């Protein structure tokens, strides 16, 4: 792809805005920036950015409002930025249609990783819409969707049907954080909405099967208070 992806940075703190812009431009992305939510909405409609990095605490309007206003009319990936301890806010943003989040303070490496994930998914949607993937590979983990087979370093892992369903769901959205609610809704339907305990136990069991050290996982990352993320790189 020759056209540089366009990234919109919505952040009220100048130093953070500045370092994000510099580091992103150093990676070859094109950036526009604003500190106001209302300006951001205008920019999203006029410039049609590929990725929006959105701070939730803005001086004029709530970041969540911005998501609500633009979600239906843009395909842009929205990455929410919020402080640690504001897990509820993150979950709300994700449920409203944000695609990912970053917890302040974050490093440049984390920022770039999230941008890469977002861009991959953006391409995925525009390029291979409809053509389902037949295989998923990351590090030593590979999933064969046709044979419903999960292997680690070519060694087959035996998962229960429910565990397979979970890892399949996560691999389809690899790199993205999936909220507890989203996963429960997708797998069990909405009956278990407030009960994430069974989900957590399933995840713990999957981890025991695919991770070498469940306390320092390589594949399934826990996003405390938010959900889970299957790594994709």
């Amino acid at each position, binding site marked *: 792809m020759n056209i540089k992806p366009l990234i919109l940075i919505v952040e009220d703190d100048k130093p953070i805005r500045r370092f994000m812009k510099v580091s992103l431009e150093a990676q070859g992305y094109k950036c526009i920036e604003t500190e106001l939510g209302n300006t951001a909405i205008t920019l999203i409609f006029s410039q049609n950015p590929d990725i929006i990095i959105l701070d939730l605490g803005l001086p004029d309007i709530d970041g969540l409002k911005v998501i609500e206003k633009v979600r239906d009319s843009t395909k842009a990936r929205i990455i929410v930025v919020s402080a*640690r*301890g504001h*897990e509820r806010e993150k979950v709300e943003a994700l449920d409203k249609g944000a695609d990912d989040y970053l917890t302040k*303070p974050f*490093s440049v490496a984390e920022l770039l990783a999230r941008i890469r994930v977002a861009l991959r998914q953006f391409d995925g949607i525009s390029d291979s819409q409809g053509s389902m993937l037949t295989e998923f590979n990351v590090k030593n983990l590979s999933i064969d969707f046709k044979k419903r087979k999960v292997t680690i370093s070519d060694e087959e892992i035996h998962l229960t049907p429910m565990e397979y369903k979970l890892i399949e769901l996560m691999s389809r959205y690899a790199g993205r954080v999936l909220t507890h609610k989203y996963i429960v809704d997708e797998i069990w339907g909405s009956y278990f909405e407030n009960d*994430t*305990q069974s989900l*957590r*136990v399933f*995840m*713990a*069991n999957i*981890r*025991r099967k695919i991770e070498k*050290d*469940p*306390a*320092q*996982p390589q594949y399934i990352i*826990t996003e*405390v*208070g938010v959900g889970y993320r299957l790594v994709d790189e």
Partner: protein
Amino acid sequence: MGSLKKGKFDERLSEIYGEYKDSDYEEIKPKTMIIKNALKTLLIMSLATIISLILRKLGLHESNVIIAFILGVLFVSRSTDGYVYGILAAIIGVLLFNFFFTIPYYSFLVYRTDYPVTFVIMLIAAIITSTLTSRVKTQAKISCIRENRMRILYKISKSLLTAKNKNQIVEVCGDNLIDMFNRTIMVVIVDDKNNLQKPNVYMLNNQYKMDIFESEIELMAIERCFKTGKVVEFEVGNSINSMGYYHPIKGQNIILGVIGIACLEKNTLLENEKILLQSVSTQMALAIEREDLYEKKRQINLETERERLRGNILRSISHDLRTPLTGILGSVSTISDNYDILDNDTKKELLKIIYEDTSWIIHSVENILSMTRIDEGKLEIKKDVEIVEEIVSESISRVTRFSGSHNIKVELPEKVVILFVDGLLIEQVFINLIDNAIKYTQSDSIIKIKVTEKEDNVIFEVSDNGKGIPEEDISTIFDRFYTKTNGESLEKRGIGLGLAICKSIIEAHGGYMKALNNSSGGATFIFSLPGIRSDGNEYKAFDFNS
């Protein structure tokens, strides 16, 4: 309007009187009293006559007869109420003496001329005896009542001394006032904002309906007594004709409350009862003011303690932040001033210092944020279902973001361990413990995290193979603002709050925490948390200062 109210009031008055009449609490009617006393008088005087007749039969002198009659009068005035019967007995005595014992016997005639003198003297002696006796009797009665009241007053002041709060004060006074006045009592005191609280009514034998003090008129009277600080009682021609007698509880500067006493059937209080009520109200005022002062003192102590804590935290925080900030500032100015002179390696090194220092500041801020919750004096924990390894892995990933080449090894049980805890806080505990282990050991040390299940508890161990904790420090290590001051790691800085926070968090979850030196010479921190079964409380606030 006024007349209507008055009519209603009368209606209500008679209603209450009706109730009053139906009750058992009715005094003995005067008629029966008269009959009883008269019978007593007659009986005693007849006895005196019989004794006198016996005396005469025995041939004793008639002066003994006179004495016997005066004795009879004495007995009459002792055993009857008031001195009317005494005087009556005296006259009867004289007449009987005349009738039975003067010649001619059995007639009211007298032959001897000195008898009238005898009669007069006898009468005077008998009357004086009877009046004196009955006066002594009333005196005894009054002093008995007084003594009783003094005893109650003493009892009130004694129990007020031991009263622990305002409610107890009100309780004590209400109970004792009932004993003292034998009437229904109402006590109301002010709250913190100087508004009257709900009245406390103490009923005498539960005989009246509760709402004596709840009618509009009474409430108005209470309000007026409270506002003016003056006694409000039933008075003819008064705009408020209350059925109660209301006495204010006067404090040093303000009115602290009102005591009300039900005065039904225009049965108003006696003057000395009012004086008594006043002394009770004064005692109550003293007790309430003492309670207020105590509360104020407690508040001030709490405030001072909080202020001191805040000061300590600020000092410790500013020191902790200043050091890395100085490093950052120095490195940045070095780079920007000598950008062209410095070679790339030096610049990279300086930038690395900036990165590390900044990471350190971020870590400190996390602890400070936990502290701001403590600042309120209370820390609220939001418990949720958590999986142990998720907490452990999250903590490790947070710490290792900044740490060097330490080896972190984790040992987890085979079974999935579920906890019901505040995930963020437990994570903070792990972060602080792992971070401490990193801070106080060599860079190639091994840090081991071990989780085991023991009965209903889950035991966590964080150990390192460093130099351990000095023996003399083990007991104080969880104190606020403890930092390792001796030893080689002096250059590493730390907010001495970390371990204190950890301990508070664990204890708030119903666990315990301890520190010891392990067999490899390094330090081990052990803490326990209750397993999922043993706790159903979702939210729990706890006092961090305790």
